[in-house]
């Protein structure tokens, strides 16, 4: 089969994988090699769905022995199948890289014959890239759950990042939709990866020449909206993954119905984009804003209000901590003000060292005050359009959100039009 046709099939089969980042590694080029990794990552293009393209994201093969209900590549699916050779993967990566189309390779795969066999094929391709082509660009490789630990160990020596997908938010759902994937295998492989990463880091502290092992760490992804778990379960799961396995990222993939199955939402369901967006925002709050999942959601409110961002929702339920004085509040306190992010908080901290700040100053400094106005004072004065009252502020902010024609906070593949059409997707 022609490489072009394979590329079409195997890129198409890989597109539901959400991860695209090329960050976290600062691998240097070698004297006779090609490529290096950029610590912050680089996006090279943006596809028609608005998602960034950083890596050549392909499956090694889409021939699968599994039959996971939600997957387009399951054994019973009637889709064209293809399998790359390691040489083809290397050739594509290098030629794209030399033209600056990509930052590196994201190699995933369906499970062909067995987890071990699949891993060996993938390792063959990355080994060829690293050793024969002396490629030093970014490589992200999927770990196949249930593959032998020695294979994961070997792969880790060649790649920058590795990810093992947790797929679904609970063991029940996993048994229901992907009975051949075992929770013990997934968690076991994650644990093994994590301990190997820690060990390699420790070794590199003592021996400069000790080999790097998955220097950009591990990530995972799970599907949101295919099964009935509320946001609370998902966020708690993520929090545990961050703590227990030192995950760099947990990716959420709003379920896009592609196959008909009695255990899945109907094929006519709209993908839960806004819910996915709120989860990402909450995930950010866990990682960069020092929030705990139990602060954001509880059994009484197990799902996010889709009309408000999670931080605003939290602040409105904790008005007793507000307003805060921008001239004296600590960094951590500023971070908890809706509308003030890491950049604004740092700006405020820096600017107030040379001058005490007024509301006008904040405007000039381009601190976004649309939401923040209700939660701060400047030199003791309160500037909110309405008094510090939960329902009044909630109404104001929701109303403004609906009116504004701009984008939501981080613009995660969303525009306001999609939010307005969308209804929250909570299957119970």
């Amino acid at each position, binding site marked *: 089969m022609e490489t072009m046709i394979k590329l079409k099939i195997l890129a198409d089969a890989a597109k539901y994988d959400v991860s695209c980042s090329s960050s976290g590694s600062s691998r240097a080029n070698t004297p006779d090699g*090609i490529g290096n990794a950029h610590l912050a990552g680089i996006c090279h293009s943006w596809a*028609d769905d608005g998602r960034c393209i950083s890596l050549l994201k392909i499956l090694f093969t889409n021939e699968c022995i599994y039959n996971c209900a939600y997957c387009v590549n399951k054994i019973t699916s009637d889709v064209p199948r293809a399998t790359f050779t390691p040489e083809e993967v290397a050739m594509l990566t290098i030629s794209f890289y030399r*033209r600056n189309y990509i930052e590196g390779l994201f190699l995933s795969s369906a499970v062909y014959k067995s987890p071990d066999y699949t891993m060996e094929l993938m390792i063959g391709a990355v080994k060829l890239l690293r050793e024969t082509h002396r490629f030093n660009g970014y490589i992200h490789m999927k770990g196949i759950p249930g593959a032998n630990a020695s294979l994961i160990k070997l792969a880790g020596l060649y790649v920058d990042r590795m990810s093992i997908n947790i797929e679904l938010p609970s063991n029940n759902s996993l048994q229901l939709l992907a009975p051949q994937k075992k929770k013990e295998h997934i968690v076991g492989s994650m644990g093994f990866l994590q301990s190997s990463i820690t060990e390699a880091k420790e070794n590199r502290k003592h021996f400069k020449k000790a080999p790097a092992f998955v220097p950009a760490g591990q990530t995972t992804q799970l599907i949101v909206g295919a099964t009935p778990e509320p946001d609370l379960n998902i966020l708690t799961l993520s929090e545990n993954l961050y703590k227990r396995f030192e995950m760099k990222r947990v990716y959420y993939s709003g379920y896009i119905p592609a196959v008909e199955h009695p255990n899945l939402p109907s094929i006519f369901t709209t993908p839960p984009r806004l819910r996915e967006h709120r989860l990402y925002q909450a995930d950010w709050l866990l990682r960069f804003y020092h929030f705990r999942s139990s602060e954001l959601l509880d059994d009484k409110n197990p799902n996010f209000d889709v009309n408000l961002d999670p931080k605003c929702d939290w602040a409105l339920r904790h008005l007793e901590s507000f307003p805060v004085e921008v001239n004296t509040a600590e960094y951590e306190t500023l971070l908890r003000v809706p509308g003030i992010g890491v950049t604004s908080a740092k700006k405020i901290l820096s600017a107030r060292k040379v001058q005490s700040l007024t509301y006008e100053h904040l405007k000039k400094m381009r601190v976004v005050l649309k939401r923040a106005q209700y939660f701060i004072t400047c030199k003791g004065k309160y500037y909110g359009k309405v008094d510090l009252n939960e329902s009044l502020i909630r109404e104001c902010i929701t109303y403004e959100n609906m009116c504004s024609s701009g984008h939501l906070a981080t613009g995660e593949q969303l525009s306001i039009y999609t939010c307005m059409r969308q209804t929250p997707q909570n299957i119970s």
Partner: protein
Amino acid sequence: MVNYIYDSSFEGLLTAIYESYYSDKPPEHILPDRYVQQQLLCENIQIVTCEQKADKVYHAILKKISSYALRHTYYAFLSEKQDISTTLYHYLRLGFKVGKDIDRYLIDENVRCVHDISRKVGFERHRMLGLLRFRQVGTDNYYASFEPDYNITALIAPHFTKRLSDQNWIIHDMKRNIGAIYKKDTKAWIISDMMAYQPIHDISHEKMFQEMWKTYFNSIAIEAKQNAKLQRQFMPQRYWKHLIEKQ
């Protein structure tokens, strides 16, 4: 009113700043010569670029203000905005007064303006690290054309020197007709005038790789999530001319 006119080079700007401290006629505006218009009631003083004077200012910024301020100055200068030289003049004067705290004066008009423009230049630099597209024009020779808003060729060249060190390449800024030319044998790049550049034809299999890239680009998008507006927001249309996947 006095205007200082310099030769549009960074050294020229620094020389003008040097002169402003030793002249009894401080400038109302500092202008690169490409923007000069003769105005009534205005005296234009031509600044003669002097490497030693520029060097003194350069090191004074590093020592008395900060390396951040120097970087902001250089990046903002590369924006080539009409009034940026005058803004930089005020920025640096304040800098020499308050020292390394300069970048905390976010409420000062000039500081904010320099930060904004320097950020925009830095942003375009980062964007181009991804959006630049090379085509193969010989066994080891690659060529990329682009039309950046700001004069960032010299800012992106070091990145490709590290990354694509085993191929010869040219990065051609078509808007300014300058280019960075890298030779793998010497592992060095220079900025060169590209007025006389004769385009070289792609090698025969170049088209095939471009088609493969387009195939990949189209296959990786999820149809159910089409979002052209978001795509244009990240990848503005003015850059498409040089993007293979958008042709």
